[in-house]
């Protein structure tokens, strides 16, 4: 082991892909009793629900605990009836690795070209970016540091191998 870090596959999570304009976001906020982030590449924790990620001006990802996805999907569909929007349950699209440890940042910097310095990327920060030879959503969950690296399901074995070889 070269780096003081570990990478572990987390249990499957619920993911909703939300597309829509400002009105859609506001309705979602009302349903969530929280706020989806409005700045691209940022995240916000929504109490008792999960984490919302803003990936584009009209595009959010909502991460929920597994089993909650269908309930929230239905809830949004109902609340957004008549609105021009798209709510897609993509829970099976993604798998998340938890990367943590003293040198987790140094491990991540071998796959990601973004600036991960604590001055610009700290707890709660999020970005969707190229990760080694695939793409990932990177969310910093603590200042330890620890990161949730969410990748497409079909790349699981590649990313698993990547972490194994690098760490």
């Amino acid at each position, binding site marked *: 082991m*070269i*780096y003081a870090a570990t990478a572990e596959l987390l249990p*499957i999570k619920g993911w909703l*892909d939300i*597309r*829509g304009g400002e009105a859609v976001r506001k309705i979602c906020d009302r349903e969530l009793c929280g706020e989806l982030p409005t700045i691209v590449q940022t995240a916000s924790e929504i109490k008792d629900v999960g984490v919302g990620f803003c990936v584009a001006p009209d595009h959010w990802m909502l991460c929920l605990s597994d089993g909650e996805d269908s309930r929230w999907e239905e809830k949004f569909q109902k609340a957004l009836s008549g609105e*021009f*929007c*798209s709510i*897609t*349950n*993509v*829970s*099976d*699209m*993604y798998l998340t690795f938890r990367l943590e440890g003293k040198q987790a940042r*140094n491990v991540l*910097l*071998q796959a*990601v*070209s*973004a*600036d991960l*310095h604590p*001055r*610009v990327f700290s707890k709660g920060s999020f970005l969707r970016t190229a990760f*080694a*030879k*695939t793409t990932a959503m990177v969310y910093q969950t603590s200042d330890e540091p620890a990161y949730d690296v969410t990748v*497409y*399901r*079909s*790349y*699981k*074995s*590649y990313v698993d*191998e*990547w972490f194994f*070889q*690098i760490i």
Partner: protein
Amino acid sequence: MDYRISKYGDQRNEDNRRERVMKQEVVYRLSNSDNLVNESIDRSTPLWFEFNGRSYRGFLGDTLASALLANGVHMVGRSFKYHRPRGIMSAGAEETNAIVQLIGDDDEPNVLATTLQLYDGLNAKSVNCYPSLSWDFGVLNEWLNRFFPAGFYYKTFMWPKDQWDLFGRFIRRVAGWGVVPNSIKENRYEHRSHHCDVLIVGAGPAGLSAALFAGRAGARVMLVDNQPEPGGDLLNTEYTINNMSGRSWVTSIVEELEGMENVKRVSSAIASGYYDHNFLTVLEENPTEQGVCERLWKIRAKQVVLATGALERPLAFADNDRPGIMLASSISAYCSRYAVNIGQNIVLFTNNNSAYSTAFKLVKAGAHVEAIVDLRKGVDAGIKRTVKSVGIKVFENQQIKKVYGTKHICRVAIGAFGSDEITTLDCDLLGVSGGWNPTIHLHSQSGGRPQYSESIASFVPGDSVQAEISAGACKGLFTLSDCLSSGFEAGVLAAEACGFHGKRESTPECVDEFALDITAVWQVPLPHKGARAFLDFNNDVTTKDINLAVREGYASVELVKRYTTAGMGIDQGKTGNVNIIGYLSECTKTPPGSIGTTTYRPSYSPISFGAMAGANKGNLLIPWRRTEVTQWFIDNGGHLDETGAFYRRPLFIPREGENARAAMEREAVSVRTGVGIYDSSPLGKIDIKGPDAVKFLNRLYTNAWDKLEVGSAKFGYMLYDDGRLMDDGVTCRIAEEHYLMTTGSGVADVVLRHIDYLLNCVWTDLKVYITPVTDNWTVLCVCGPKSREFLQNAGTDLPIFDKKYFPFMASKTGRVAGLDVRVNRVGYTGELSFEIFVRARDGRQLWDKLIEAGKEFDITPVGSDTSMLLRTEKAFIAAGLEGDGYANIYDVGLGWVVNNKKGDFIGKRSTERDLSIGGDRPQVVGLKIENKTFVAPKGCPIVDPNMEGAKKMEGMVTIGFFSPNLNESIALAQLKNGRARMGEQVILFTKEQELRATVCDPIFIDPTGERMRS
């Protein structure tokens, strides 16, 4: 004295030999005295290494070059073209002679001995010599040198023409600087990204000053230096800064920098490339992490400070390349940093004052300097007095006329210009200084255009093109005070540009050395016609070669470079370029500034392929994707191969004892007669939602989508703007404003990008959102006439026997094998098929249940190649095969998919244009090969059998198989005007044979589609 240590000798013999080596070394290693305040070696840690089969000892902190010199080894290689003996010339990355090959476990070519840090067990050998360094057959080239001038390879080996292959083989055998390793190294290479406010390249006085200010101001600073320890020239010389020694000043600065959390310092790291947007690559050797041998940093900086220093250049005089002739400053570096007393009797040859400073340092360190031979008249009296006071003779207005000694110099003859009178000086080391070249490579790579400076007779950075500031010697400022002040200034400017304002402080006080006061001399007059002065040691380019190039019309510096190879190769002309330009200016009578430099390109120094690849090798070379079923195929002997989009899918799944063909035939027959199962998960899947989804599909596909009902699916073809085939697929309507599109596996990303672009940039009027969902679903395709019975047995609540409710192209949700699924009655085999979509997490579970339930039906897992065979039998068109970038949708027989009444769609205009032009377009047809044992290869040309003489290509095979269901060798092909040629005989033209085939309808099986609609 024999230093060789036998591998088989006993320990005592080895000890005795090592003892002898140590005694020899004492002669060349200065004692550990107070004079050597900059000594960088750790004498308490001896390291043993081998060079050319002999064992030597060095110390921790030595480079291979310093350790060799400490053992009295100067001659380390042979030159590239003439195989002249060559010795170590410099003490850094500019080295042009000491290029060695590492052997053994660390096998690597093109390693510079002057930068390679010594380690225990290092094993290296010389290159370009056979059978040995001392006795080299290649020296024949030197004797025949008059036949090998610049550009000889453009003029020779031209006749006889058919022998070029022979010459080529020979030339390739003798050329080259080393041998590529045969084995794969287990070494670990890494890439790492880094962002900073200020990147400072070079940790000499200017770089350290810049880092100090920018760091104190609070900017995120990265300081990289190619030396193992910071200090630059301060380590080679005894300077005084703020009343402390240069080394102490460096230590104090480094300590302060180490204490700043916003400063990162990387040593032994060469900045190799400067690209657009202030992106630089830096190669770090032996990072601190255990097991990592090289790390390639990819750095994005808001501001870059280049403090890369300057490199001393040689003088061009007769036989200036002999071992024992070195750059003057490197003698001083070896002396003060590595405590190596290289020569017992040193002579310096110069055209500037820096050699006087060097002489003074050498004497102070305990070396003996016999004389300074100066090309100039009127050397400053004060300087002369200073060096004469320490016993050094000064010969003004004199030149080296002759160098004695081939494998090592032993004396030199000097004399005045134009005079025949000579004086002979005994010397075992000649230090030369022809001036200093600012290291402007990175500035040039950044887009800057270097300017010629008369005062230093070299090039300095021009205007900055990117956010970059040059400071110190690389800006042409050679005094210490100038370096320090320009460094501070650069640090201030860079930090302030990033929004960090620190307290400006005064520049430290220091004592400067002699001013440069250079008189440019590009070639010292040669004593006789046969004498040669080398400008580019790396490529054996002499002043005569430059002359020849100019005479032959190659007067531009770029043409001279290419004609003579001057400035190319491993050293990239670090020491030679300016001399080449200077001499070219003499030949062409053009000022050097008007000639300019060639373009400097990355990388500054050689980079190993390992470093470029980083972790991207072995299992990480290609990011192989897996479906939920991939492991089942691996466990059951599936023959996996790349099938596009980074998926490795089974081509077929052979049973024990089966070969590929037998497996495919079994699978194909099973699908036509029983039931097969196929993993279609890699199909691209895109979720489409919005009130304008129908409009969107109408514009995207060639056919009309208005009448597609919820719960049904439809086949569609999309075209490029130019009317060529892009992709086909089935799209099902899930709800009123909700569709699920499938695309080809290999082009899933292409299609997604295409429609994402259309919606975001072209059809912004459409209210449609798309979401890629490829990985969200596992898709298993059950196909074959017994599919219904099988699914019934597996358990489903779908009325699959109700042909009215569940007809061909139906798309329904329900349960299969206890799991929630969507089932589309579509397939790619032409048989009754059910495509089952299940949540990816349930994919493997469904597969296992279906395999289990299918045992009584002898269900057959089917691979991709078998699927291709089945689609060939049905003439299902593949956009990437039958659509070759020329064929349009009518050519491939899919005119029925086009609805010209529905309005515009992508590719409509181009397709109509094709129709209006008409002519004999290639059309997709079927072929039945006369020889059933022959399978027509893809791309096989088709020719007219009636044509005499030269064959004219009439078309080509797009895919061919032996069909076990037809007991025929069949193929799909594009044939000119093919549909009008049914029944015609054509010839398939292969390398081995010509085969007869009959043109037929491309749909070999079930032309009416009864089976798939059943």
